[in-house]
């Protein structure tokens, strides 16, 4: 494994019910790099993300993680408690009530919804709330599965700018997206 890489995949393959989802996939993600996993529906983008995270095991090949790796992840499920308020969810996620959080809440338009239960927020607002965890992370690898789905163009801009800034700060990004973005990324196309 290249010592600069945070994640490196070597000829990995995955099958579902005996059908090949993808095979011979190799890539590496170094600090300050972004990897955009693209492909049509059902091509295995989310599965590949889960393999990178170590949740799902590939059937062939190897995946290496740097010893210093610390991952923050947002997938299709946003890990929010629907019956709790926005502020309770923030507390549960260990996000402290500091200036940085307050600024982000204002920026994303969530400040006035602090006492509203998550179940009463729209899908886009829930997504923004879940993204706060990513915004305030201290990890060196950000993994996102369709981060722009459900966001309006303003929010998408904010997320994009944040991610570009994080990459410039030396963090790595792996993401899937069907929505065009301005993030300068290596592209891994699953067919």
């Amino acid at each position: 494994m290249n010592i600069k890489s945070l994640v490196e995949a070597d000829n990995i393959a995955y099958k579902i019910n005996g059908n090949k989802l993808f095979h011979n996939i190799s890539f590496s993600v170094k600090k300050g790099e972004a990897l955009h996993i693209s492909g049509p529906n059902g091509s295995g983008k989310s599965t590949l993300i889960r393999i990178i995270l170590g949740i799902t095991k590939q059937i062939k090949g190897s995946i290496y993680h740097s010893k210093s790796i610390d991952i923050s992840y947002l997938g299709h499920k946003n890990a929010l408690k629907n019956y709790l308020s926005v502020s309770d969810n923030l507390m549960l996620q260990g996000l402290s009530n500091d200036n940085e959080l307050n600024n982000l809440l204002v920026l994303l338009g969530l400040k006035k919804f602090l006492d509203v239960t998550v179940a009463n927020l729209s899908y886009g607002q829930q997504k923004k709330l879940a993204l706060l965890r990513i915004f305030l992370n201290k990890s060196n690898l950000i993994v996102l599965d369709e981060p722009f789905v459900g966001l309006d163009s303003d929010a998408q801009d904010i997320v994009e700018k944040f991610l570009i800034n994080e990459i410039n700060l030396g963090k790595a990004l792996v993401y899937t997206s069907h929505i065009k973005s301005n993030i300068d990324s290596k592209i891994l196309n699953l067919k």
Partner: protein
Amino acid sequence: MRSWLGPILLFILIMVSYPLTIEFLEQDLEKGFYSLLWISILLSMMFSTEDIFLEDYNDGSLEQIIISSTSFPFMVAKKILIYWLMIGIPISILSFLFSLGITQNLSISLFLFPMALISSYIFLNLFVFGTALSLNKGSVLGALITMPLALPVLIVLGKSIIAIQFGINYLEFLLLLLGCLSIIITVVPFIVSYVIKTHLE
């Protein structure tokens, strides 16, 4: 709130129903009470673990825990401990109070209290294992798988009451349960975390 209060209310309901639905004279109530008490603890613990992981599984929190640097078996053990503190201990205290109220026998009720504490923790661990096995497949399957494991504990609990009544070997039964508990609380979190990871795959 539902998963906390539900099992405790179920336990109270069974305990209150017992003297109301049986035709024994007051002095005979003790006869079937202890068996019912252990079964009530067993059912309450089964009920309490019904959706212990389901919510976290559905909203993606389990994935977040697994990819975080925190030890997953440790998180499982912590979750079981919190359930025991919130549900097991109140039920054990209620067991003592109902035992005292129904049998009016202080010494047996005092002996019964540590047994209730230990057995509730054992049952909780066993049913958490069952719930993990049947995660997203309904809790009945898990309960069916776990029930045979709980039967030996019920037998020991039944024998321990006889031992208390005859004034023999009580401590040995308590130590036997403690031994079972120490093995179970060490092993179950690892098995459960492995089973949940397999589900998430």
